[in-house]
């Protein structure tokens, strides 16, 4: 499998990274080089192997359903690029 310019543009769109024409063109061989190298995994026989998600056996814990945090609005907003009236402010999304 290899990527072309249209695919690179599509991935950049999914990743929400603005990419100029020149940057996208440069990424085509770069990503293909890495993907080509990764594809050696195709040689490995993985029939019947369960995918590994957790490396060290652990169990998911349950805790009491109680509020343990909150009431820190100002701290949450402290690093916001733009905070207004106690909220995060963003460009208008609905016309």
């Amino acid at each position, binding site marked *: 499998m290899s990527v072309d310019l249209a695919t690179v543009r599509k991935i950049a769109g999914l990743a*929400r990274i603005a990419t100029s024409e020149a940057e996208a063109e440069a990424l085509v061989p770069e990503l293909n080089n890495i993907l080509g190298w990764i594809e050696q995994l195709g040689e490995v026989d993985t029939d019947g192997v369960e995918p590994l998600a957790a490396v060290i056996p652990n169990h998911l814990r349950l805790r009491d359903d109680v509020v343990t945090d909150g009431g820190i609005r100002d701290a949450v907003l402290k690093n916001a690029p733009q905070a207004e009236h106690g909220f995060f402010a963003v460009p208008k999304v609905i016309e």
Partner: protein
Amino acid sequence: MTDLTDLGIAAIRDGVAAGTFSAREVADSFIASVEKGRPLNAWLVETPEHAIAAAEAADRARTQGELLPLSGVPLGIKDLFATKGVETTAASGILKGFKPEYESTITSKLFGAGAGMLGKLNMDQFAMGSSNETSAFGNVISPWRRNDGGNAALAPGGSSGGSSTAVAARMAPGVTGTDTGGSIRQPAAFTGISGIKPTYGRCSRWGVVAFASSLDQAGPMARDVRDCAIMLEAMSGFDPKDATSLDIAVPQWEKALSGDLKGKKVGVPKEYRVDGMPAEIEALWQQGIQFLKDAGAEIVEVSLPHTKYALPTYYIIAPAEASSNLARYDGVRYGLRDLPDGANLQEMYAATRADGFGAEVKRRIMIGTYVLSAGFYDAYYTKAQKVRALIARDFDQAWEKCDLLLTPTAPSAAFALGEKSADPIAMYLNDVFTVPSSLAGLPAMSVPAGLDAQGLPLGLQIIGKALDEQGVLNASLAIEERAGFTARPGRWW
């Protein structure tokens, strides 16, 4: 009088307790060394006031007989750890100016144990790199130089390159690092210091800027094995705020340190003899085998057949997790915002991320997005998770024959800055010996074991069974006791 910056963590702790010197004197010495070391670019933020406050508290605690495990010890903190009120950027432009409103669990524990903070350490951006060259705030320069008189600027390793440099250049007696695929062990090897990545789940990830969550582990880097054991004890422990934190007691690793390996079997994996490995690395490995035999261990050859697939597996799983974790940097809640004139919300996201992320971070996010995208998920991501299972199984099978594994830490000594930065895959290959144990979540440590012909440090790696940090520390100590590694970089800065 001794230069206090020549002392490690145990010596500082014991000297402060005995009243040989004050914690304040120690802090002042390291603060001066940090200032003098600025040409190395290891620090992104200096926090002398924090180190002094902790030192004064330590001196008061001594008079009251209330010393804590790390009282009087000033540390460097990798910039991946959120520190309350102190800028934390992960060496990325996208977090420039970010001052967390909270303290990471690890730094809370260290400060709670009496340690002070000298500052925040430079690193590869979001911990993605093996040379510290992906930092948005400039390369860290290794204090080491080749003995050829060429004075080429060398890589301190990565991603914990500011951390390795701070210890090697005597700017801090100990530092925190993080290791996703070798980011503690490879820089430790490159700079002639020790560093351990504990079992996945030992150290809380809460408040550590996330890269690849199923792999990320914090650990200490210091001058020797004992100092690493002391720091690791203070850093480890259950944290309900991290869903993958292990709810088990922290052993007293320092107390149980012993370089006597009688009755231990150490495996030497034949697949770690890679093509093009310098003869010096092979010779160092043989030397390490002799050291461990001398310490009483029995050496056995073992096979880890899927070793060659570890790197490609890692370069699917880590970017996939990164692409998901780094989705949070969107210019809305914290960090950089780039809002071009008339841009809508989607355009703001894209402009902010284009502006704030470095080239290697973007490359990995793109790879991760691709391997997780519709139609490719099974072929790449699920396949990689299956191979990861086989890599973990290789280790399980090796443990039927041995207790520990001995390998080189890295396939070469430190390279020059710029030497590998044009070829991502050449850079990735640096982690060929460290990535497999990361994928399996196992504890692993690098200790300095010798110098190459150019006078640069080389490290050996000990890998252990899950939760056997003691075994890893003890075998590392056995190497340390026999290697007699005392070389240090001449002070040219």
